[in-house]
């Protein structure tokens, strides 16, 4: 299902740092160290527009740090990255988000003491009422607010959260919080959405529905990058897989090829004696 015929990634060779036909995000020479330990050291990476890219790798491979750097939440020692042709290094996080690259967090950041609907309404961009003096004149933003409200309610419907509309976000379950975060990110109207372990800590019963939502993001024309440990999930929904270990990208390619990649097997086996590698290689024969 992921690689339907004629998918632009089909003819791309499975090599690290390979050029993509239509890259949305291009990362060059990004390096981040913590007190001498290299957390991220990515030479070159391109993310294909409109595709779903999975970022995998053993614990401590630097996936989250990479997310943090690219989304502006952490500053690298060196490196640059372009999003839709626009240079984004040294750009503050909030501008990166406004540029259309929105991320979620591994530990969900629901705004606990705000209502679910307000969590969503907050995320809309270009709100006139968010300016200080604008805020004092409700007439200026009331119409816009009503539109935002409608959009937010549609998204709540889509993510099956409509019944929780007026509850505090703190009352949501772990899986619902993940859904809330995804819906909230969509309110920003991003072209690239970065999901940091969207399935982590979620009740298994909810995983399928979450998966469906991620798939639908791509169907809506969005570019998705997500970090995931579960190889079944990766196989099921991604068009392209990038594997990191010890801060570097050691392999990339279509999902079917990645499980056979000796570097990937080595990274999992060398790092964690098998538990994850079992999943990684298990898919090999399938």
């Amino acid at each position, binding site marked *: 299902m992921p690689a339907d015929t004629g998918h632009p990634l089909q003819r791309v060779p499975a090599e690290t740092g390979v050029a993509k036909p239509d890259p949305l995000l291009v990362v060059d020479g990004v390096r981040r160290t913590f007190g001498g330990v290299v957390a991220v050291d990515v030479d070159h990476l391109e993310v294909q527009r409109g595709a779903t890219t999975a970022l995998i790798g053993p614990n401590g491979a630097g996936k989250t740090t990479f997310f943090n750097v690219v*989304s502006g*939440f952490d500053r690298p020692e060196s490196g640059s990255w372009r999003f839709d042709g626009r240079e984004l290094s040294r750009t*503050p*996080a*909030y*501008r990166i*988000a*406004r540029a259309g690259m*929105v*991320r*979620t*967090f591994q530990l969900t*950041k*629901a*705004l*606990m*003491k*705000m209502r679910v609907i*307000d969590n969503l*309404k*907050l*995320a809309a*961009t270009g*709100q*006139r*009422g*968010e*300016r*200080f003096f*604008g*805020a*004092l004149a*409700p007439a200026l*933003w009331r119409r816009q*607010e009503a539109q935002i409200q409608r959009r937010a309610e549609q998204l709540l419907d889509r993510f099956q959260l409509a019944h929780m509309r007026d509850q*505090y976000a*703190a*009352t949501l379950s772990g899986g619902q919080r993940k859904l809330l975060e995804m819906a*909230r*990110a969509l*309110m*920003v109207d991003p072209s690239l959405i970065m999901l940091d372990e969207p399935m982590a800590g979620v009740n298994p019963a909810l995983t399928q529905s979450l998966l469906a939502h991620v798939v639908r993001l791509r169907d809506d024309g969005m570019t998705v990058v997500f970090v995931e440990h579960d190889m079944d999930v990766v196989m099921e929904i991604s068009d392209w897989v990038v594997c990191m270990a010890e801060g570097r990208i050691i392999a990339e390619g279509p999902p079917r090829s990645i499980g056979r990649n000796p570097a990937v097997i080595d990274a999992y086996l060398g790092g964690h004696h098998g538990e994850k590698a079992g999943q990684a290689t298990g898919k090999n024969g399938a």
Partner: protein
Amino acid sequence: MTRLPSRAVLVATAVVVVGVLLTGVLFGMSTILSAVVVAIGVNGAVYALAAIGLNLHFGYTGLLNFGHAAFMMVGAYGLAVTVDKGGGFWVGVLVGVVAAAALGLLLGFPTLRLRADYLAIVTIAASEILRLLFRSSYFDPVTRSVFGIQGFANAFYDLNPYQPRTYSFLGLFAFRDRTLWLVTVGWAVALVGTAVVWLLVRSPWGRVLRSIREDEDAARSLGKNVFGYKLQSLVVGGIFGGLGGMLLAIDFQNVNPDAFLPILTFFVYVVVILGGPGTVWGPIVGSVMFWFLIEVTRGIMSGLVARGWVSGAILSSQDVAAVRFVLVGLFLLVMMAYRPQGVFGSREEMLLDAR
């Protein structure tokens, strides 16, 4: 959502009511009435105004401003110095407002990008340093150091519309005309301030502030310029602090650096927490409650000594003031540990607080 007062609130209310009645019986109703006069008088208004600003910082944005006294001080000095140097009263008010706003920018720029604790440290340090500067001989030509500046409020009192007499209310308590004028203006400004905050916090602007309080990284990931909003909050709240400081100065008809010790900031914190941080009416309710309780406590302690029930050796009049500070500290500690949502905050909200 129905909001039934929790048992803790009921018990606390019962304790306070019984305590107040008992105080009235033991030490005379005048103890209670004079506390009411302070609570709804100038002190109540001053602290309400200052608390409106701090509530914007702490209650809505989650900023740990521990230098609120400095905002009050620069507001008061902006007014006093301007008039002292020959400027008009209203120019002075404007200068005070600008000074408070400038202090907000000055403190905010180096600290608001860092962890919340840094703001706490820098603001409390700045408030002490500014106080020491203002009282130093170096600034004597401007601030007249420890002797302070007087006589800057005449223009204000000249506007007094009341007849020069004592106004009595319900035969229970009374204000002189000048005090009543100040009380009127003070509470009017506090009400306008509350209205402004009400407008602000129910707007998308206020929504961003609350999101920053909850989780600033989340706000950032959604494209909000967190630093800019924090700075705006610090400046706007600081201006309310400055207005409170001016009111305080007009009341005393004197500004003096030592009226703006760090303990003043903590008093305002107690006001905010009493009334409920992050609520529109919290500052006003908290201020009235705070001054009522503070004054009743003082009445009880001096009553105990006056009747000879407690020896003056243990509770000297100096100790009475200090003991109240001890109680303020204890209150701050207990409230933040067990009821951070304020006396009237909902229990439900507290349960959400497992952050």
